[in-house]
């Protein structure tokens, strides 16, 4: 517990290229949210967004940090990576746009759906990036909001 408002706060490290463990963070978060009795439709949205964000770090960055915190009103993820970054964020947010290599595509990813999927599943989403340095994602889900 980090401060009064936070019910829960977890920090995870992600290693770029570590495909074997990709998805572990998302499933851990999913389990935690289930145990806490968060409604299933929201858990699913959060898990999908977390998984896409996790995969992005594994695919495109050297290293990343995934912070998960839960307050009485929000689920909050921040994902910060050291990696190639994104030149044109507007373009990267378009469905189908991808810079993935053939190798990544063969793994079933790199369809250009990752960032749009994160945005679609979250209630609030912000992205910033510095090419050559890394990318930062700020993702929120509201616990008391009607399903979209």
């Amino acid at each position, binding site marked *: 517990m980090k401060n009064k408002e936070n019910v829960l706060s977890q920090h995870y490290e992600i290693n770029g290229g570590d*495909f*074997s463990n*990709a*998805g572990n963070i*998302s*499933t851990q978060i*999913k389990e935690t949210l289930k145990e806490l009795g968060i409604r*299933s439709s929201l858990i*699913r949205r959060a*898990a*999908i967004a977390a*998984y*896409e964000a996790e*995969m992005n770090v594994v695919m495109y960055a050297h290293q990343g940090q995934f912070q998960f915190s839960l307050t009485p009103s929000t689920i909050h993820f921040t994902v910060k990576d050291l990696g190639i970054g994104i030149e044109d964020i507007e373009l990267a947010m378009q469905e189908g746009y991808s810079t993935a290599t053939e190798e990544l595509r063969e*793994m*079933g*990813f*790199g*369809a*250009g*759906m*990752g960032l*749009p*999927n994160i945005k*679609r599943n979250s209630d609030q989403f912000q992205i910033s990036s510095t090419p050559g340095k890394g990318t930062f994602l700020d993702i929120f889900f509201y616990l008391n909001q009607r399903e979209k």
Partner: protein
Amino acid sequence: MTLKKVKELLQAEVVCGESQLDEEVTFAGGSDLMSDVLAFGKPGILLLTGLTNRQSVRTAEIIEAKALVYVRGKKPDKEGIELAKKIGIPVLSTHYMMYTSCGFLFKNGLPGVSLLREKEDEK
């Protein structure tokens, strides 16, 4: 449709989850692109795929798929099978290709996830 029926229609081999074949699926979807699966998948889906790595099973877990069918005679890799066993998701493997597999299931009354979505949108 029970998973047993899916197995029969696709002449599939059960890779794991033999004891869960009486469970029912009510819709299906097929893709090799996991990001597409994450975008269109709904809980309870029967997921057909030709992608055999661990991520195919992981994706099924994230979207809460009921079962996985690998087409073109494929099976998940060792890590994938281990993960499927751990999370308790039945895995079938059929020698039919994607189009044929989907066709057999559709023809026998198993609708696609997209049809389900269109119905919901109409409401």
